[in-house]
């Protein structure tokens, strides 16, 4: 077993209304960032865990997403090994 830091991105399903994205987009525009054409807001979740291979670490995490971390009705998710920079200490 060795330890892995996994990064999960949970993103609102395309086409679903994203109120947070909408509000932030609006705010950015009123701050003068007028080249912004769209904003979507999701979650970035970092999970540190023990597993015996990167593959099994990823598989286990995808399983967590289906079970708990993502809402299958409204969200898509994406799992990968986090590199040093991203993994918060």
């Amino acid at each position: 077993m060795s330890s892995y830091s996994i990064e999960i991105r949970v993103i609102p399903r395309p086409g679903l209304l994203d109120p947070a994205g909408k509000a932030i987009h609006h705010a950015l525009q009123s701050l003068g960032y007028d080249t912004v054409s769209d904003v979507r807001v999701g979650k970035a979740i970092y999970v540190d865990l023990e597993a015996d291979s990167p593959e099994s670490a990823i598989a286990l995490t995808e399983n967590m997403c289906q079970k708990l971390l993502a809402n299958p009705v409204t969200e898509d998710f994406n799992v990968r090994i986090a590199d040093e920079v991203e993994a918060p200490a």
Partner: protein
Amino acid sequence: MTQTPNRPGALKAPAVAPREGDPVITAAVVEEHGLSPTEYERVQQVMGRDPTFTELGVFSAMWSEHCGYKNSKRLLRLLPTEAPWVILGPGENAGVIDIGDGYALAFKIESHNHPSAVEPYQGAATGVGGILRDVFTMGARPIAILDSLRFGDLDSGRVRYLFSGVVSGVGDYGNCMGIPNIGGEVYFDEGYEGNPIVNAMCLGLLKREDLIKGEAEGVGNTLMAVGARTGRDGIHGATFASEELSQDSQASRPRVQVGDPFTEKLLLEASLELITSGHIVGIQDMGAAGITSSASEMAGRSGTGVELDTLLVPVRESGMTPYEILLSESQERMLVVAHVGHEAEVKAILEKWELEAEVIGRVTDDGMFRIVEGPNVVAEIPALPLTEGCPTYEREGVESEEVQALRAMDLSEFAHADGDLNETFLRLLGSANIASKQWIYRQYDTTVRTGTAVRPGGDSGVVRIRGTKKAVAATTDCNGRYVYLEPGTGARIAVAEAARNLVCVGALPTAITNNLNFGNPLKPHIYYQLRESVIGMAEACRLFETPVTGGNVSLFNETDGVAIYPTPVVGMVGIIEDIKNITHQAFRSAGDAILLLGDNTNEIGGSEYLYVLHDLVAGAPPSVDLMGERRLQHAVLAMIEAGVLQSAHDVSDGGLACAIAECAIGDAEAPLGVEVHLVDALPEIPLLFGEAQGRILVSCNPEEVDTVFRLAKSHGVPCRQIGTVKERESGFKISTAKASISAEVDNVTRIFMEAIPSLMNLVQSGTPEEEAQP
């Protein structure tokens, strides 16, 4: 304007060329749209030709159960809807009653059962959003929310997932809008395992002169789309909301609607400003069936016609067809009819609130619901037959034999305690249906707007009316088990309990809204439940002089053929003339006398006791004497006005023992002890835990006991002192001839307060995966 060009059938639709790219209409397509062959023939009659695909979509939405009330309209005619104080009855976005001092109260209840079963958080949130819009489109500022919920038993992870999702959805939306939640109810019972019930009720306050209707008056006036943009959300939600859930409804479900309470808050402020600005003649929520229902209903109501251009509707996604735009159920949108020439002023008001308003069409005089896409007409339907012409049915109703057998069951063997009575009592008190609902309403802002005088936790919620001495009270009630066992009686009890809950806070019951949650009415035993419930509700409302000013019907609440308990939720409002009369349920001080108004009986049918202790839903529901209830209501109000009561509490689920505990515990901050002795010659179980109707538990200062007796007598209400309020230390004691309950006050309090939290902490509250497999 004249109705004549708009009589059903008087108008025929001119030819409309099919839009290229649209599917051809086959029997299968018609069926997918939820229309029966005969209903489709009716469409062809109305049109005088075959409909286009877009037109078919419009009909399927308007003639769905949700919009068209196919299976309930005829029954709803039985309900009393009139009284001198009723300003607007059923048919509008919300009912409106006169409450004096120049004010009116708009209120309505709405269901979001199916969306909540699919996505509990968004389903519940958008349910609250919808009922709020129904109320503020009347020109009323929402002042209170109530929520009436039903779930399966909490030992299922999926149920916990649904329950916690629904509660945060209800909470987050109302909290963000700044509308206090003042009450509601929740029941947990296997009977709701497959189909949770999520009904939300809203009360709004308006100055009489600000009342506005959802009408498209004034030929030439301008239709404007206001608020959020239109996306592909929940297309065919209205039809969907009228279908049974099944395994594959996961696949076939429309895209979930996501709520945006922030946008709705802006829309609320903008709408109220619009309504008082004089620039508009009508405004309506784009709720179920979106633009289609709002536009056609506004035209239908005022006997005019409308023409609108789908290319002018602000959209969130590209490439949307007229069909999609017409049927989208994107939230936080309004349809406004502006005085022609005032469009700029309307836009200005919306812009101030950082929202959009676009001209999308106009009011016409030809009685047609006409949709164009740029130069091309894509739909042209006579408006009145579209809104009023939906075929309605009287179904066959037969009571199921299974239920008859359950009701006939002999329960005498359960009349005596088996095992330790203290344990039995504490188990009952700790059942999720009896225990404190604080876990829920702690997540709801109950004090915003600084008007809440009685918060959730009492018999009814109370909101004072600023600048007057008045307050309004509201409650929701329905015990689905009673209705299941005997629909007529169950519905009468729902109305009677609501009225008792109101008088207990000092309010005079004034009017109701109702939400009829039932299974598939095409099944005779379900239609029987629906019919008998409406008849029972009508009888009680007539007798109590609480007319029905509106409501909502949610049918087909079934999963794989299994129906929910029939659940006709009653949302009742009452008026308190002087806030000094506001009364609470908790005992106030040691030494006060505890009196019982009404009689104990030998009934335990349909009780929580049977469900919790014997896993049984059987027997006849308690009998209800409506005349007696009426006398009881007046007696309690007289006592409150005489200022002699320290507390009042309705005796309902869990019976007398649980009601006494609720009064002793109060909000659990400073619980008190009690010593009660019951002399009735009844077996201990019905006496302590039976749910006999027509009972209210009051407490008063010993000097006032005589006055309470006198007022009870003069109103012909049985009354007796059953005990005394004690110090916390002296314990919780109830004795009967045969048996007695004796417990530590702190123990009773802990069990009552911690039951639901500990159930919810059992395992983390369910998971989406469990949710994904109904």
